[in-house]
């Protein structure tokens, strides 16, 4: 009897905390590779041409990524903690172009969903205001408003046979009147496996050429200064929602 008791107690001690160890978690690095068409972006030096025959250079490219969700083949979603899922991708700062997500449920994922900008329905929840210091340091707050700029794309351009001038495209939401926040879902064709205590990698290409030429054709001659612009901002936001593509997933 005594032996049985000791055995029982040992068993209980071993098994009773097992819950915590059961789940397997891995990490994921997501790289954002900013390109213009097939060329990598070189700030202030690379020249690119859009379909309206405007040659442009890029001096600044920043965008906010948020609300990251990984989706399994059966539709099951792993929602990354929203409060920890605001990231600023800044072409100028290479460390900003790799984001690290920790404690992801292990498994095989076939899709990733994320937001460009900030979902207003998160206001003031989910730590959305804790992103303020990052946003203000990078000039991603509207100076007169309490909202974030979602995408900041600046440079100079020369129309065919014309002279060079600056362009400045700032896309964000306009109060509650116009919401330019976009969610993007990308298929990961070769699947993404998150292992146990391992780090997987995913790279996403961001093609700024699509800002001009995608669902809509946008020429800078049309308007090169877009800030709070209820006509052009939604056109550009729609194009922006098409500029991301999975480049590679490795496990």
């Amino acid at each position, binding site marked *: 009897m005594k032996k049985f008791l000791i055995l*029982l107690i040992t068993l209980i001690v071993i098994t009773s905390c097992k819950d915590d160890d059961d789940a397997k978690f891995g990490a994921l690095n997501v790289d954002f590779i900013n390109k213009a068409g097939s060329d990598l972006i070189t700030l202030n030096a690379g020249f690119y041409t859009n379909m309206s025959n405007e040659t442009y250079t890029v001096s600044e490219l920043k965008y906010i990524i948020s609300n990251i969700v990984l989706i399994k083949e059966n539709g099951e979603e792993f929602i990354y903690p929203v409060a920890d899922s605001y990231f600023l991708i800044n072409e100028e700062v290479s460390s900003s172009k790799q984001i690290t997500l920790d404690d992801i449920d292990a498994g095989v994922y076939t899709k990733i969903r994320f937001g460009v900008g900030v979902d207003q329905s998160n206001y003031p929840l989910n730590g959305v*205001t804790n992103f*303020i210091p990052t946003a203000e340091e990078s000039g991603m707050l509207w100076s007169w408003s*309490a909202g974030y700029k979602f995408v900041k794309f600046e440079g100079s351009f020369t129309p065919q046979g014309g002279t060079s001038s600056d362009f400045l495209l700032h896309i964000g939401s306009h*109060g509650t009147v116009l919401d330019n926040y976009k969610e993007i879902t990308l298929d990961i064709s070769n699947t993404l496996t998150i292992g146990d205590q391992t780090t997987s990698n995913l790279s996403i290409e961001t093609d700024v050429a699509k800002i001009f030429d995608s669902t809509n054709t946008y020429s800078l001659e049309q308007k090169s200064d877009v800030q709070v612009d209820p*006509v052009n901002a939604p056109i550009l936001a729609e194009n922006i929602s098409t500029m991301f593509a999975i480049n590679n997933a490795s496990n």
Partner: protein
Amino acid sequence: MVKNIGYIVLIIFGVACGSDKEDYVPISQNPELAFTIPSNFPEPSYNVTLNPPTEKGFELGKKLFYDGRLSSDGVISCGFCHIQDFAFTHHTHIVSHGVDGALGTRNAQPLHNLAFMNEFTWDGAAIHLDLQPIIPITAEVEMNESFSSILKKLEEQPEYVTLFREAFEDQKINSENLLKALSQFMIMMISSNSKYDKIERNEGSVFTANEAAGFELFTSKCASCHAGTLFTDQSYRNNGLAIDPEYNDIGRNRVTGLTSDLYKFKVPTLRNIELTFPYMHDGRLKTLQDVLDHYSDGMVDSETLDPVFKNTDGTILGISMTEEEKQQIISFLKTLTDDDFVNDTRFSEF
């Protein structure tokens, strides 16, 4: 024996996973404050359950509100432009003053009953109370400060470290908690004890003959925009002010970019209006008499002038009032002054 095993098993289950719990330290007493909706008020727009005011949160919010550390020069606090004696406006200042004597372009709005408002500032640039302070804090002509810098300054102050720890479960000094604390302080600022309130709630007060006549005139001539017990329908309208060439303030258009929103500003609440002079978004009108004169005779037409001020043929109608009627309306407006509120020591700096 079997019974004993049962007990032992229970005890083992109970303690085997208990290691985390040993770190548990009860946080100091931080009781919730009663957020009481006055019986003549609507439901609040602010979701109080998501950020319930507590004793420590309120204390922290008040300390922040009156602390110059929130500005780049260490002097300009929120309370600098929002002075309690004048229902938290910048008394006699046409436009707000900021750091290093910088001048803003707009007149500081009163702070009261903010939990009942949907959007904030003259043009609705803040869609939530927790976001509003971002604007004055970061504006160059106001507090000209960054959140990163403020948080650093606060971390160096032991009293702030303690207050943040006591006020919030995650105990952190971060922008979310800073804004939440400010909101906890501000949503408690309810002004609901004016003579008008006591009449509306049947608490024994009565209008004088002048006030009663003024109330009747107000109801027929002003209350379509200054509606309800908050005296605003919270819409944005162009009330026919001539464009000030110095500021050329485009109003709501700056937020929405819509041409139809040019020169529109928030219909302000009229509570404590006697105290919050000067008037209009840029403080151009000094007295209530000036305001009523504007509505009767001073309007300027423009594309976006609110239709309520126009005749069917498009000419300006304005609001017709005799001198006597204006005096009566002013008498009524003075019944919206809430002395209890402006003297409430809970909200006072000292």
